[in-house]
């Protein structure tokens, strides 16, 4: 097992608001290995974005606060670094692509300039010509047509899909070891989504960067990811490799997520949403955060009182679930599982 690129342990992040303290991330730990794509799945408010933004230092410190935890990257703990040191990693070894391409680029600066800035910030000695050439090359890599013309244009002259490609180009400009993509396709049309995902795959192949792909779309996870992390109410409730998670989910929430999706190859009369809504992150009820909506719990005492720890499923440390009764889900196949006896 190679060394992980990023190693997060016991990360806790909270926000002070007028209504109380929001526990956005409540003790999560995971690793990201070189070259792999890790998917983080969850609803809005599950803490998936906050966890990655906090290690990059992009959470405004009031009202946000990293309470505890470590994030080891290249032998340094990102959470303990001074601002200036963290800044040297950002955009260079660690890069991020954000959700909404329409607002993520500065409207008054040319696109070429903004991409060049990513390079020049970290390599100020590079000549302007070299930087420009590299930017054009990057734009070409992500599939922006006529990159030499587009270089001198403003963001409003780019379409949504093109802007997202430019964002991706900007993120990989310095060949990062870790790329974090926070819902990169959520704000785009479905057809453009597919194109942007292709770009991400291309980019990964070129740079061999480890990627964290944050999304609420299971379809994207299935297509792009090697391993999956499922988050709920600030905690990781299940994780494993993608085939296992889709084929053999062992957490009622994961199952609920999959069941709420329609399966195109079958006739379904009813869609099955998960009843209820996510809990308040300010006043957490004791016990498992999911239990009020859980079909498995049935109000059993441990669910109501004890927070379930992440435990290996069937002895395998690669697949863990945070459910008191995960064993009761044994043998259950999700509707997306390959049919028994067919190709694995």
């Amino acid at each position, binding site marked *: 097992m190679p060394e992980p690129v990023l190693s997060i342990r016991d990360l806790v992040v909270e926000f002070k608001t007028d209504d109380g303290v929001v526990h956005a991330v409540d003790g999560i730990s995971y690793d990201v290995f070189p070259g792999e794509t890790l998917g983080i799945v969850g609803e809005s408010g599950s803490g998936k974005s906050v966890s990655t933004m906090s290690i990059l230092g992009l959470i405004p410190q009031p009202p946000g606060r990293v309470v505890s935890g470590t994030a080891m990257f290249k032998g340094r703990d990102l959470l303990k670094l001074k601002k200036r040191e963290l800044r040297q990693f950002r955009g260079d070894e660690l890069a991020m692509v954000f959700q909404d391409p329409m607002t993520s680029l500065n409207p008054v600066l040319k696109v070429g300039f903004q991409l060049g800035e990513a390079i020049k910030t970290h390599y100020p000695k590079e000549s302007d010509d070299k930087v420009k050439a590299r930017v054009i090359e990057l734009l070409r890599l992500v599939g922006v047509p006529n990159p030499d013309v587009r270089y001198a244009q403003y963001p409003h002259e780019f379409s949504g899909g093109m802007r997202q490609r430019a964002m991706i180009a900007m993120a990989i400009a310095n060949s990062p070891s870790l790329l974090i993509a926070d819902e990169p396709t959520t704000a785009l049309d479905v057809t453009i989504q597919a194109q942007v995902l292709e770009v991400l795959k291309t980019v990964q192949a070129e740079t061999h960067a480890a990627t964290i792909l944050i999304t609420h779309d299971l379809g994207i996870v299935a297509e792009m990811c090697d391993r999956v992390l499922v988050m709920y109410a600030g905690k990781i409730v299940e994780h494993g490799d993608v085939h296992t998670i889709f084929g053999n989910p062992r957490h009622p929430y994961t199952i609920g997520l999959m069941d709420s999706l329609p399966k195109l190859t079958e006739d379904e009369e009813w869609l099955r949403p998960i009843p209820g809504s996510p809990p308040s992150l300010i006043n957490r009820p004791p016990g498992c955060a999911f239990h*009020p909506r859980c079909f498995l719990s049935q109000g059993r005492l441990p669910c109501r009182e004890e927070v379930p720890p992440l435990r290996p499923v069937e002895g395998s440390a690669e697949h863990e679930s945070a459910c008191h009764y995960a064993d009761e889900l044994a*043998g259950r196949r999700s*509707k997306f599982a390959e049919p028994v006896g067919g190709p694995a």
Partner: protein
Amino acid sequence: MTDRTPVGLDDPSPAPIEQPSGASAMFPAPVGLDELIAGEGIEVQARSQWTYARIRFVRHRLAMIGLFVLIVVFGAGALSSYVAPYGLQHIDITQSFAPPSWKHIFGTDQIGHDQFSMTLFGIRTSEEVGVLVAIISSIIGMVVGSIAGYYGGWVDNLLMRLTDLVLTLPLLAVLLTASALWGSGSQWRVTFIVALLIWTGGARIVRGIFLSLREKEYVEAAKAAGAGDMRIMFRHMLPNTMGPVIVNGTIAVAFAIILEAALSFLGFGIKAPTTSLGTLIVAGQNDPQKWWVTFFPGLVLLIIVLAINFIGDGLRDALDPTQRRVRA
């Protein structure tokens, strides 16, 4: 402990069984969502939009202070005939230019008018002018704005060009000219002149809202049901403008009061015998050593405008919370 047989998710033909909300054969109703809420003693109350607005307003400290101050000041003005220690006609040459004292809180002017009483009468004039101007200009603005916003097209274009034209000339210059030509010192003429020139802001706001509402489905639905233009405008669209119109109207009161005071200060507004804060302020110019003549009426004017501004901010917060709150 309930004994449940795990139902296979790959069950070929699940028959959906009628069960309470959100539940099905696969997922018997999870225990206790409602019980949980009731158990924790959380009460859910239905509240009207205005109640929410009132709560938000009350939370705004500055607005509450402004409201309190304004009630006191305007109240004193409205009741000036009873509250003022000295009448309008009272003069006392022996007390000419007396500095502030217990007998004359704001001092006296050259012929012995008690400045405190004069200021109170001036406040009354200001509030009469301010409120009336705000009401009239809001109505004009609503009419023009709704017509422009509802019909759109060339009607909108024409009306907006006209309002733009009104704006190309600086307001005070136009007001001064109008007042010089038609004002002749009367409080009511000045009121009408000011009202006729400051409605453009309100018109723009109403027009903007109408333009965006036009596209909404419920307007189309009302049209399809055969509702006439007037009815649609009044019943469906106008109520949506109430919040911003009220905010704008409140600020208009302050604006009108300042304009009237400026006009009177320069000698083209309200003239004697009606008292205006503007005329009171300018009276102190020739005797700069008697600073209280200018200072107090102006201070009162500043307080009125500040109070109204705070209230306006609070109202904006309360009635339109979607607008990003500029932290005072």
